[in-house]
């Protein structure tokens, strides 16, 4: 009842907002004379992004937006294509908050969408963007459903099935004979998607699954039962295809009961070290699959990490890296397609769909990224382990 009331109030607010700007919203997207050209005469495109800037997943949205701003500023300091960037909050909601954020961006005149940040809202928004013919490149919405049957949607991160398969392969290779247990959130497309392919690949590799526990958004506060069951099943490897907030609770509760398996997470585990007041010693030895490691020694990653630390005072996570790459990928695609800022969002969309499968982009989340026409990216997942509070490449 609380939720219904909340949605109702949000709806009233949004209707009010739309009514307020109704007079000029409709034509601004295709108003060609208003196409922005900045003082230097560089062609300037309007790119927008939506993601959780408040709420439990805010760390992801904030990271993507922060990094995207760095990329935009870097690009605007160069000659060639320039960008105007706007970020909207969708609170990682898969309902009308996601659509509202998207509509606000469209009313602003967005030509290319660098979003969404999370899978749930991505599925909702990509369906709408598919109808509107808006090109959409999600930095971190990793569910297959975000790009499925939508020729306009592409991903920077690898998909959930790839994460599940990649994790199972990694465990099979580096921990032969591991007794694996899984705890996943079964009311979440992201978690369920990874778990499904993980379990299938694990069986294919001949490893046994000792225990499988689930939880939902409402029961994410107590894992003692699942942990007890995993422990008594004799599992020494606990796979956690979940976000870091419940993972932090699991680490703490496992520690309290004296259960110490090897924990293995995926990209959602990223962020656990920045959780305020979290005892990072609990995360010591936790493995996670991520395409980005802030301690990598190539010049571009180091420059990005230094700039991010200077501006926002923290080490960028993998979501930030995805957001940074996404802006550069859009730039590369716009250049390859020869788009001009006076083109409408729909025209740009058709042009970009044609060039995406042909371009190759080097980013900080992977060298030589290429895309299939389905929207899936091709790059190798890599595992890191947490040692002394930082990600390092595992030795074995």
């Amino acid at each position, binding site marked *: 009842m609380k939720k219904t009331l909340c949605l109702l109030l949000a709806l009233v607010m949004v209707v009010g907002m739309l009514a307020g700007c109704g007079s000029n919203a409709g034509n601004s997207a295709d108003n060609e004379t208003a196409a922005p050209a900045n003082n230097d005469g560089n062609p300037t495109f309007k790119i927008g992004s939506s993601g959780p800037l408040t709420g439990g997943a*805010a760390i992801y949205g904030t990271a993507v937006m922060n990094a995207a701003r760095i990329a935009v500023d870097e690009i605007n300091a160069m000659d060639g294509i320039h960008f105007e960037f706007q970020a909207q909050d969708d609170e990682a909601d898969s309902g009308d908050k996601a659509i509202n954020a998207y509509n606000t961006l469209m009313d602003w005149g967005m030509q290319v969408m660098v979003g969404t940040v999370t899978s749930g809202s991505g599925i909702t928004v990509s369906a709408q963007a598919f109808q509107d013919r808006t090109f959409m490149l999600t930095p971190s919405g990793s569910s297959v459903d975000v790009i499925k049957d939508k020729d306009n949607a592409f991903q920077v991160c690898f998909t959930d099935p790839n994460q599940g398969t990649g994790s199972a392969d990694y465990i099979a290779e580096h921990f032969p004979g591991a007794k694996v247990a899984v705890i996943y959130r079964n009311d979440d497309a992201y978690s369920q998607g990874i778990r499904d392919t993980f379990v299938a690949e694990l069986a294919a590799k001949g490893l046994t699954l000792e225990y499988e526990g689930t939880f*939902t958004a409402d029961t994410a506060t107590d894992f003692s039962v699942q942990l007890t*069951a995993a422990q008594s099943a004799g599992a020494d490897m606990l796979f956690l295809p979940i976000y870091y907030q419940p993972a932090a609770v699991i680490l703490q509760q496992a520690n309290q009961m*004296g259960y110490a398996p090897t924990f293995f997470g995926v990209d959602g585990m990223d962020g656990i070290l920045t959780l305020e007041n979290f005892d990072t010693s609990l995360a010591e030895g936790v493995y996670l699959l991520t395409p980005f490691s802030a301690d990598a020694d190539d010049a571009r990653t180091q420059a990005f990490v230094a700039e991010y630390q200077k501006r926002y005072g923290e080490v960028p996570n993998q979501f930030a890296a995805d957001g940074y790459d996404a802006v550069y990928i859009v730039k590369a695609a716009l250049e390859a397609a020869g788009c001009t800022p006076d083109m409408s969002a729909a025209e740009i969309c058709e042009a970009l769909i044609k060039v995406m499968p042909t371009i190759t982009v080097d980013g900080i989340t992977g060298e030589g990224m290429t895309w299939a026409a389905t929207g899936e990216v091709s790059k190798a997942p890599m595992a890191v382990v947490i040692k002394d509070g930082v990600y390092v490449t595992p030795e074995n």
Partner: protein
Amino acid sequence: MKFLAYLISGISLGSVYAIIALGYTMVYGIAKMLNFAHGDVIMIGGYISFIAANYLGLPTLVSVIVAMAVCTILGVVIEGLAYRPLRSAPSLAVLITAIGVSYLLQNSALLIWGANPKSYTPVVSGTLHLFDGQLTISYVSLLTIVACIVIMIALTLFTGRTKMGKAMRACSEDKGAAQLMGINVNRTISLTFAIGSALAAIAGALLCSFSPTLMPTTGSMPGIKAFTAAVFGGIGSIPGAFLGGILLGVIESLARGYISTQLSNSIVFAVLIVVLLVRPAGLLGKYVPEKV
């Protein structure tokens, strides 16, 4: 051994529900209103003790006492500003106001402390190992169970034996008659809110020790579960809230362990429906027939 482990985790989870449910039931029993903002007062209590312990460097016990003081004031202020003017309004208006206060608190917390979760340091750490380490019980669980029992007994004695407690029971039975007997109804209800909110602060500290991720929405789901527990045990009854909370926790835990982790919530609520069908006033609630 697995059964014992599930049972203990159920009882300690249930104790958290029970402490929250005691706050619900106190307010309902005396002021006859559902204070839906109770869960959010718990969240505020969690944040205050977090800040006192981590930013001001106060010892754990002191930080919980600070949180209790702040929550007590908060509870009395909420009651005075939001609920007192509606004393003679229809109960639906008060209910909606309570939901409004709940959102106000949640969003204020979002503004003040931001959306990023904070990791709460448990008030006690460590684990008790029994039977050669086959059974482990965290000290937090033990503390929660003990605190819950102590609070339940203290509240029962308070309402049963003291003059203020007597005044509370009088208000609960008939506000008009109580006023005629010289009882200050407004002050009694304020006191009820003060006690309920101080309990919320303790519940906040224990809840966050149990499940250490502190967010502006931390209080909402446990609040709803505890409300269920209060109805289960018979809303308005103090031992009922205790019993309801413990049973809810144990059923949830055993259902999760032996039947299905997915269905545990459904099973809890199915049991609630069955209990309410058989005993409409809850397990220990008094069924008062209304003469028309």
